[in-house]
């Protein structure tokens, strides 16, 4: 007997839906732009012998330096549901520049090995992960990042944000409930040259007219990280097959010639996700005979009870729309003519029962 689930159904993806980004109230003021020269002039006026003297002025200046502050935050509200075998699933992270200067950012992606993501244990890896930066920051259209897009953040303006999208392909062998976490690191880099990835910012001694860096990000090191991940959502089916001798056994319970044996196949869906296109293929032993038009099954050849619903089943006629076919000794319940197969709902059981008679070569008269 074989259990075939030909195709998975589509599941709801909690990926990066349209997110309203609020920029009205900044928690941290961006401040005077780095590179601004701030001048202070004091002027002294006085008299000598009641005669007004020429004012004397003196000035001193400093150049505003760069306060390096930025955040990398999750955009989605939960792990992204993926179907085993699904490609191109994704989540977004938002990089926000809170510095008083435009910044470049270098990025690095690593799959978690153990640890937790969204307070859930990381238990698997994706078949493939990669990232891409949006081609339009939030202030410039908030463009959805495309796979294989820019690999670093170029000249992100002060007080602007940009989305970085992490893509993942789920292995077909991924099991229901497995979690694949991914970590993205962003390192602040030197701005100034468009299309050129700025080298990581460093702390240096002051120069009179130059811009020095002061790290004010969470780690005070110019590097911020965040994680998010994918969770496999698939039906979890368990199939069992049992038999019982229900008649003609002379009270022995043994499958002796002339007795009737009833087989019960149960397909239990223990997940909350419906399993589509379920089909059972079972070979009837050539030594026994399949009972047809069983009275206990309301006249059906095979009892097919899916959850609370009883499905019609006539194996004598193939491709008649009931999904019950018999070809030689091979019986299929849930064949393609039933619109592709049987759907076993989440937390539900499909029960298939059929009876066979063991031939009696020497029937008692």
């Amino acid at each position, binding site marked *: 007997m074989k259990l075939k689930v030909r195709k998975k159904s589509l599941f709801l993806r909690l990926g990066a839906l349209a997110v309203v980004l609020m920029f009205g109230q900044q928690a941290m*003021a*961006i*401040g*005077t732009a*780095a590179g*601004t020269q*701030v*001048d*202070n*002039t*004091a*002027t*002294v*006026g*006085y*008299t*000598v*012998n*009641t*005669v007004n*003297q*020429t004012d*004397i*002025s*003196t*000035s*001193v*200046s*400093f150049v*505003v*330096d*760069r*306060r390096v502050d930025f955040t990398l935050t999750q955009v989605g509200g939960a792990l992204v549901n993926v179907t085993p075998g699904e490609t191109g699933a994704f989540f977004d992270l938002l990089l926000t520049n809170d510095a*008083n200067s435009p910044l470049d950012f270098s990025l690095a992606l690593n799959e978690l090995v153990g640890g937790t993501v969204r307070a859930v244990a990381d238990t698997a890896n994706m078949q493939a992960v990669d990232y891409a930066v949006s081609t339009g920051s939030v202030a410039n259209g908030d463009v959805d990042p495309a796979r294989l897009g820019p690999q670093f953040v170029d000249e992100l303006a002060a007080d602007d944000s940009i989305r970085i999208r992490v893509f993942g392909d789920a292995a077909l062998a991924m099991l229901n409930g497995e979690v694949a976490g991914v970590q993205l690191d962003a390192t602040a880099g030197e701005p100034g040259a468009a299309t050129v990835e700025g080298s990581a910012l460093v702390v240096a*001694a*002051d120069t009179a007219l130059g811009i*020095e860096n*002061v790290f*004010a990000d969470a780690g005070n090191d110019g590097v911020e990280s965040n994680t998010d991940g994918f969770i496999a959502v698939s039906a979890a089916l368990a199939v069992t097959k049992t038999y019982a001798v229900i008649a003609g056994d002379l009270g022995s319970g043994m499958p002796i010639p002339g007795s009737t044996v009833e087989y019960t196949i149960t397909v239990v869906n223990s997940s909350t996700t419906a399993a589509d296109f379920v089909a059972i293929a079972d070979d009837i032993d050539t030594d026994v005979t399949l009972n047809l038009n069983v009275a206990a099954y309301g006249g059906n050849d095979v009892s097919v009870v899916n959850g609370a619903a009883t499905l019609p089943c006539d194996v004598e006629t193939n491709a008649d729309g009931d999904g019950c076919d018999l070809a030689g000794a091979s019986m299929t319940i849930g064949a393609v003519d039933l619109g592709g197969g049987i759907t076993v709902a989440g937390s539900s059981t499909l029960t298939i029962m059929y009876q066979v008679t063991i031939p009696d070569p020497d029937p008692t008269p």
Partner: protein
Amino acid sequence: MKILTAIILATLAVSAAAETHLDVRTTVQKEETFINDAGEQQTRLVAADIVVPGEKVFYTITFRNISEESADNVVITNPIAADLLYVDGSGIGPGTDIQFSVDGGKTFASAEDLVVIEDGVERAAEGRDFTHVRWVMKNDLEAGAEGTARFAAILE
């Protein structure tokens, strides 16, 4: 005629000398916390080399009478740069009255006498409202004497 000329020349010479009565200097510094020899935490002023938004800077103006005459009615006027916010109560000037302007330097008064109107409501002026600070010496600056004025501001 000759005597008149001599007097005029003498007057001109005095006026020229008046330009160098005072030596005026100004510095900008930051506060630094350090542990002194007794193991206690102390602060001192150091050069304001690296300054980022949110930090406080201190401006100190020193004015010394390098002439042999008394300098009178000495007033030091200091506009507060657009990117700076005056720190309330930070003005220091021994022997001076400290006054502020909220109207771009047209009028000056002591801090407690200044009001501004915000959203149609009158309120007491604060450091962030001041456009100028000035120190008015109460007495003359005698020959050889030195005065100091200081204020602090936060870089926006």
